[in-house]
């Protein structure tokens, strides 16, 4: 394996993404959200009520109407942390993943432009390495951005509330995993269609179909055939709903048994592995 070349391809993916300004936009969005939380959201402990806080937005205290009249909005610290973590996860799924797919699928298909590919294929780097390096470059780009967001937000939550919670960071890693699984499918489609548009749409359709797994029982109640189709889709496609449930559990907002966790992670990883293997197989045998 040509390790220097492998890393050069990853580096190049990042440089190209930077040049296209898409990763700058992503970094700015993350930075903007963190700055908003750092300077826009104020948290103050309520005197005489340990563990309870009031919240202010840009210095204006949040208030609620009660039977006794308007009062400061008071909430347990732990609930505030969890609410913000849920909000962060809500931003990452689907918006973070969607944006990530949009950026990285374009990066992958740009490698397949003929004149560019000729220069790459004529170098001492195997096609499987080239494919995998470009894929890894995309995943790492999303990994770094997601980690920056989750670590930054967790740090800010600790500074503001004193609560140390690494659940959001762990949830961020699962978000990156979901992205990596979807991206393996997007790269295969980008390879087959040599474009970004169809690959992105097909990936979104696949994501939607994979989500049907959560509605298997309801669909079976409607029609046994629909139920069977949902079953097949559930076992073939990545378990995005289960993975989202794992994320909710990590931030303390849901339940998910260990066997579910391993089954969902394992079968989704298998799906990603199969998509990558198929992509590499086709790429290695294709004439350019």
């Amino acid at each position, binding site marked *: 394996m040509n390790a220097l070349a492998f890393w050069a391809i990853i580096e190049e993916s990042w440089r190209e993404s930077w040049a296209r300004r898409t990763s700058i936009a992503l970094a700015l969005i993350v930075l903007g959200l963190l700055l908003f939380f750092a300077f826009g959201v104020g948290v103050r402990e309520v005197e005489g009520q340990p563990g309870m806080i009031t919240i202010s937005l840009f210095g204006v205290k949040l208030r609620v109407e009660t039977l006794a009249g308007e009062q400061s909005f008071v909430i347990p610290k732990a609930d505030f942390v969890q609410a913000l973590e849920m909000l962060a996860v809500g931003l990452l799924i689907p918006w973070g993943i969607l944006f990530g797919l949009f950026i990285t699928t374009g990066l992958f298909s740009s490698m397949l432009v003929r*004149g560019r590919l*000729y220069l790459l294929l004529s170098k001492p780097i195997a096609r499987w390495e080239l494919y995998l390096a470009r894929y890894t470059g995309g995943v790492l780009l999303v990994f770094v951005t997601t980690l920056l967001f989750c670590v930054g937000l967790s740090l800010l939550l600790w500074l503001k509330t004193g609560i140390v919670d690494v659940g959001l960071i762990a949830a961020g890693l699962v978000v990156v995993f979901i992205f990596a699984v979807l991206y393996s499918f997007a790269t295969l489609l980008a390879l087959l269609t040599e474009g970004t548009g169809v690959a992105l749409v097909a990936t979104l359709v696949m994501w939607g179909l994979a989500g049907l797994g959560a509605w298997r029982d309801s669909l079976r109640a409607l029609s046994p055939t629909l139920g069977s189709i949902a079953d097949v889709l559930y076992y073939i496609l990545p378990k995005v709903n289960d993975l989202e449930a794992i994320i909710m559990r990590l931030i303390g907002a849901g339940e998910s048994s260990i066997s579910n966790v391993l089954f969902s992670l394992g079968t989704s990883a298998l799906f990603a592995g199969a998509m990558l293997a198929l992509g590499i197989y086709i790429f290695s045998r294709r*004439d350019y």
Partner: protein
Amino acid sequence: MDGHRNVVEVIQLQKRYRGLWGRAGVEALKGVSLTIAEGEIFGLLGPNGAGKTTLIKILLGITFADHGRAYLFGQDSQRVELRRLVGYLPEDYQLPEYVRAWKALDFFAKLYGMGERQAQISELLRLSGLEDRRDSKVREYSKGMRQRLALAQALLHKPKLLILDEPTAHLDPIGRKEVKDLLVQLKRDGTTVLISSHVLTEIERICDRVAILHRGQLLKEGTVEELTQEKSLEDVFVELVRGAQE
């Protein structure tokens, strides 16, 4: 080292491009065989669609042959490691536009697995006349400057075999002369060169041997002296191609 060792050897190479849904497409190569000895400058001639680029792509593992064999340095040309010995300038290339010239060369040097790169990059930028513009982004380069940079990326790792597809396209007369001089210098240093070009006078002046391809078939192969005993290379070329069309 044996001075007459074959650097390139293709035997009965056949290639047909498939159409949509596997339908029979264009037959690009119809059993082409040729050899290129070490230290030679070999010219590949032929009109558009003759199969020159397909032959080159098969040698580099960019395209796969249906039948026949292709060897580089006596080994199967599909071996990835062999590309450490080969430099390639495609006819249609796309350099990374968003990086500075030296950074583009640094990227390609890494692909060749070169550890120490900076001295060689500086030397090639100097040889290409791009030293003053080393920090300019590739997108700011003219066509001619890009062509020089593309040629430089093929020479980075001091290849033993240099494959050039239309190397003087986009170059002005001075640039063409410089490329010609560079090829002569490379030959002196023992580099084998396979050059595909439409510019027959260029081929006639610098090549030791030439092969004329037409519609995937090898019409003629020999030294420039053998082919041009009675007529110029241009006349021989036109006569052969017209003869094959009739």
